């Protein structure tokens, strides 16, 4: 042990070792503060209200309105866009399903593009909830398919398979989520509370259909391109670091409109509707066509069906 003693103005006599340790500790604290400075640049944009916001399903109608107004203000400040955030609720007696006619899909990717625009996706990455695969005829083998084709369509001896969230009745993503940030709504749509998700991406690992997307950075959208008609659980501009997914455009379909991908389809390959309505077109397709679902053996029970027409 050190015998050296220092005489300091305020502290009085301290041994040299203690003085050195104190000096090192001060330096260490200063170095740590400098190292994590970017963290504070980030938290500067984080309000206490946002940090302490409750789960969507625990918010009262009044609290929801407060949250929506705050998010609208955020959109104004961060994107320069005037947006309207609403929260259309699931309709009683409605169960949605989607069917896609593979015989007439031509692989034009209009659906993917419509999704990109409707859902306020990040522009630089050209994000979309739909990936269209060009498949070899003679099987449904994704190993022989590609989503990166770049030539006029339809190509000979190929068929096209758009894949988006299958809105499973037994959704592996929902089971995986450790914080209940994602769940199936009563009408069958699997949603994410973007303000509750912690961004662990376990759901993305669990999904067998590559349906989930992560916001690897803050989405970039020019103000003029922002779709102002937004749903809290669907197409509002997502925060950085959270998961997102196809919601069958719930902000549209719960108000009686059709999903953007269906409206954009030039061939009429897409059929959407309420399976509980015996007169709906989707019900007719499910009753009369030999439909199948992707990866049926996994027991996920998709609400998204495919069929060949001829």
């Amino acid at each position, binding site marked *: 042990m050190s015998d050296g003693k220092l005489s300091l103005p305020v502290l009085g006599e301290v041994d040299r070792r203690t003085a050195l340790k104190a000096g090192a500790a001060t330096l260490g604290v200063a170095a740590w503060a400098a190292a994590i400075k*970017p963290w504070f640049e980030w938290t500067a944009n984080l309000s206490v209200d946002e940090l302490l916001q409750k789960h969507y399903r625990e918010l009262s109608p009044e609290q929801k309105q407060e949250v929506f107004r705050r998010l609208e203000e955020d959109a104004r400040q961060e994107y320069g866009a005037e947006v309207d955030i609403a929260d259309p609720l699931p309709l009683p007696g409605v169960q949605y399903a989607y069917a896609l006619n593979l015989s007439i899909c031509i692989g034009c990717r209009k659906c993917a593009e419509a999704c990109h625009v409707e859902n306020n996706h990040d522009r630089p990455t050209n994000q979309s909830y739909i990936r269209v695969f060009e498949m070899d005829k003679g099987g449904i083998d994704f190993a022989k398919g590609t989503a990166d084709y770049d030539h006029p369509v339809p190509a000979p001896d190929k068929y096209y398979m758009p894949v988006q969230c299958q809105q499973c009745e037994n959704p592996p993503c929902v089971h995986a989520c*450790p*914080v209940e940030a994602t769940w199936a709504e009563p009408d069958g749509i699997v949603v994410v509370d973007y303000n*509750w*998700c*912690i961004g662990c*991406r376990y759901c993305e690992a669990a999904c067998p*259909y590559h349906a989930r997307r992560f916001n690897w950075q803050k989405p970039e959208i020019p103000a003029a391109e922002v779709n102002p008609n937004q749903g809290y659980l669907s197409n509002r501009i997502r925060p950085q*670091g*959270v998961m997102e997914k196809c919601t069958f455009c719930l902000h549209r379909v719960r108000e009686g409109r059709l999903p953007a991908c269906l409206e954009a389809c030039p061939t009429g390959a897409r059929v959407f509707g309420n399976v509980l309505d015996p007169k709906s077109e989707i019900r007719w397709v499910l009753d009369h066509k030999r439909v199948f679902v992707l990866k049926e053996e996994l027991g996920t029970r998709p609400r998204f069906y495919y069929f060949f027409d001829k």
Partner: protein
Amino acid sequence: MNTHSTTSPLHNLTTSPPHHLTSYPRFLQRALGVATDGTWVFYLWMTALTAVALVGANAWAFQVRDGMARTGMTDHVSWGLYIANFTFCVGLAAGGVMMVIPAYLYHDQEMHDVVIVGEILAIAAILMSTLSVVVDLGRPDRFWHLIPGIGRFNWPISMLTWDVIVLNGYLLINLHIVGYLMYMRYLGRKPNPRWYLPFVFLSILWAVSIHTVTAFLYCGLGGRPFWNTALLAPRFLATAFVAGPCFIILALQVIRRTTSFHVGDGPFRTLIQIIRVAMTVNLIMLGSELFTVFYTGGGHVAAAKYLYFGDHGHNGLVPWIWAATALNLLGYAAFLCPTVMRQAWVLDFGCVCCFVGIWIEKGMGLIVPGFIPSTLHEIVEYAPTLTEWKITAGIWAFGLLVFTVGLKVAIAVFTNQMTLAREDRP
């Protein structure tokens, strides 16, 4: 409770007998003193580790600010180096139990003398695995959503919630055991078995649970055939019981050479035997796994094929997995050599080879191919970015800081340099 100290009559506290309210803070204060006091080699080591940890903290702060786009991960490969390292560190923590079992179940006295090393390793490794998950979160500010009671805890459905429980539980159990034993020794009292033995036995079961649950995170996913195998949890345990003892052997050698703490030859022999068996079991299971996927072929072989041989010109993981295979086989050969019991360099060589080999095999060789090809058979490759390497290095540096400090205090306590009896010495 009896607070009389029978072995430290010389202490000069003003209040006698000492009460825990005064002696426990004193213990912590002394521990802090011991932890920050040492030779210049010690200071150099701690400064270097702090510097690396700082680099990691800085890289993480940038990642939080700018987004996970700073990593090499994508929507196709959505977990990478962080989760790979997490998996390995959980194994490292579980590996500490390979000292506890001989010490407490088989009453191996020499192992009992050094078992604290395994328990401190468990603490450090659990902290490393927790940090590896925290840095993987897109929204670390929402970490509280995971806390039962104030967040929404999707238990028992989500396997991740099980992992949160078992990892934190294992941390608390080991903190209690290590803290209690050191404090009693500091007081100069004989530890009361009722206060730690039940926890020791619990920790043995719990060690198995942490790595089993971590394997269940992956093998429970039906959409990922590469992970969806019942052999995953047993393989995790087997590799943990290699990697953990390898690290402990290296640590014990350093302790033996640099401190007055007595480390007998017995623990080395026991740990070498454990590694021999565990590595044999691991290699058998690995061979069985590889036979099953490659002979069956079809869709399930795609990830293994990509991992070992590349696929359509994509071969990012091929060098990794063959490096791991070579290291594991070399290390295994070293451990099978009879000279491993006598020659320190053979032992060190074997430990380093197996440790690094398993880090690769269980990390980059297991997590990443789960995503390649993707669930829709797209091949998007992954390589960690500098940000990920910095953060991972920072986590290791932090873990080694915790391990070093823990050992420093434990050795001071167990060599009677830090006791209440010598309270008057600064």
